[in-house]
């Protein structure tokens, strides 16, 4: 990874935006009733951290994200491998999947609510259903795009079918599978927040909505920015993890 050069213009821009915001609110130039200045947001943030409330909500969301992601990856990889290796499975399953895939997972939320009420189950069902797709598609695509050459190599070296699959084909498909899992994680966070806003009164999503309803704009904004930073941190961590996992593979230009 290239050394991170300190981005002076970028940092200055952000500081300028924050400064402008502070000034605009304090001086009354901007007339939004409920827009708090950044200083108030910062203070609220400190309070939430100290009281442990933000931590509690974060733990809930992260737990749901982790469980959902692991489940979605497991199912997605399993199905993806099946579809990737078996032309028969593709012939009899693909059209149904293609019809289901574009259905917005959000639309399933009321249904999940009907079936499972306000609970963690609802949240997990939504997360898993939505997050399966990137993993499935990328795994299937990854397996199918392994060139015939590698199969020939396995055969000319007289490797057993199992050995060929495990030692040659799967590692070759690994980069695509890892990308699928990475895309899935971002989606997991989004779906968790959606579920928490509508169907499970816990976690960061719920916190944002409840602060809105309690007319606490500083705390709401504190949560909003925290979620943004969390998303960036998660993505960064994941990019690092996938780089480590694929460290032996040739340097890939696709991220």
């Amino acid at each position, binding site marked *: 990874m290239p050394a991170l050069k300190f981005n002076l213009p970028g940092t200055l821009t952000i500081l300028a935006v924050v400064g402008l915001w502070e000034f605009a609110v304090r001086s009354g130039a901007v007339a939004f009733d*409920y827009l708090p200045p950044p200083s108030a947001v910062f203070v609220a943030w400190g309070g939430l951290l100290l009281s442990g409330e933000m931590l509690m909500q974060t733990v809930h969301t992260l737990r749901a994200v982790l469980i959902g992601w692991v489940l979605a990856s497991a199912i997605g990889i399993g199905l993806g491998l099946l579809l990737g290796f078996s032309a028969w499975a593709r012939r009899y399953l693909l059209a149904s999947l293609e019809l289901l895939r*574009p259905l917005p997972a959000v639309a399933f939320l009321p249904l999940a609510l009907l079936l499972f009420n306000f609970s963690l189950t609802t949240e997990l069902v939504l997360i898993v259903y939505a997050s399966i797709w990137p993993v499935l598609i990328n795994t299937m695509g990854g397996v199918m795009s392994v060139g015939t050459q590698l199969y020939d190599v396995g055969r000319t070296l007289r490797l057993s079918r199992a050995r060929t699959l495990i030692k040659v084909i799967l590692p070759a498909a690994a980069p695509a599978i890892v990308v699928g899992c990475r895309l899935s994680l971002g989606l997991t966070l989004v779906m968790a927040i959606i579920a928490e806003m*509508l169907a499970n009164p816990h976690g960061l999503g719920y916190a944002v909505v409840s602060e809105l309803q309690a007319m606490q704009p500083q705390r709401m904004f504190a949560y909003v920015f925290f979620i943004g930073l969390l998303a960036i941190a998660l993505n960064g961590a994941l990019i690092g993890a996938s780089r480590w996992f694929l460290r032996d593979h040739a340097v890939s230009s696709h991220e």
Partner: protein
Amino acid sequence: MNERWRFQIGRLTAGLPPARGLLPLLLALALWQAFGPRHSPYAPPPSAWWDSVRTMLQNGKLMPALASTLVTFALAMVIATIVGGALGLLIGRSRTARRALGPLLEFCRGLPPPVIVPVAVLLLGYAESLKLLVVAWVAIWPILLNTASAASLLDELMLDIARTFRLDRLTTLRKIILPAVVPDFLLGLRVAVPLGIIITLLVEMLTSLPGIGSLIVISQRQFRSADVYGLLVVVGLMGFVINSLFAMAEQLLLRRWPPRAQEMR
């Protein structure tokens, strides 16, 4: 004439998976219909879904909701396309702009879309414009970032060609820069379209502003499960139609560009 039609249809359907693949879905629906409890609050059979959709059509609940959702979505996409495309071009062509705005844009892009809704509600109140602005805001980012990236990677060679032919700025823009960024712009749009549908529904669900999303939530609160399932199918069809239209438009537009390697969504 028949030959040409068959060829065109063949081209359109070439990428589709074999129709046999619909069997599991049809089978599941058939079994559900045959063995599902008629008046179950949790799993009403497909015939009940159809009945409820018809009822909603007849008593004038469905069409206005559908119209509201579609109109908001379409308008928001137009705004996002124009603003995202224009800004993307401007930012992409300027190195300082890219460096200065980079972190800010990354933050905005990384911010999970659902979080925008409460912020917008706080600032704008429950107005119709809220829906439009939120969807437009969310849809702008993929378009803007993809266009900016393409604009920044423009082959210097092409710009040299423009200079050699002494083309003025407007012509350069029209004939050289725009065609070069169109494929990536469309890629951003391809991400933005399904995202736009999702966010439109989400806003409706969260704020109960009129639309299919709020219709589903209302049905869920009234425990009208057949309505919920039926509306789910309607949403699915809506999404399918929109995505197909977009895919066809994309095909038409990209006719003259060299084919790209198979993209995985």
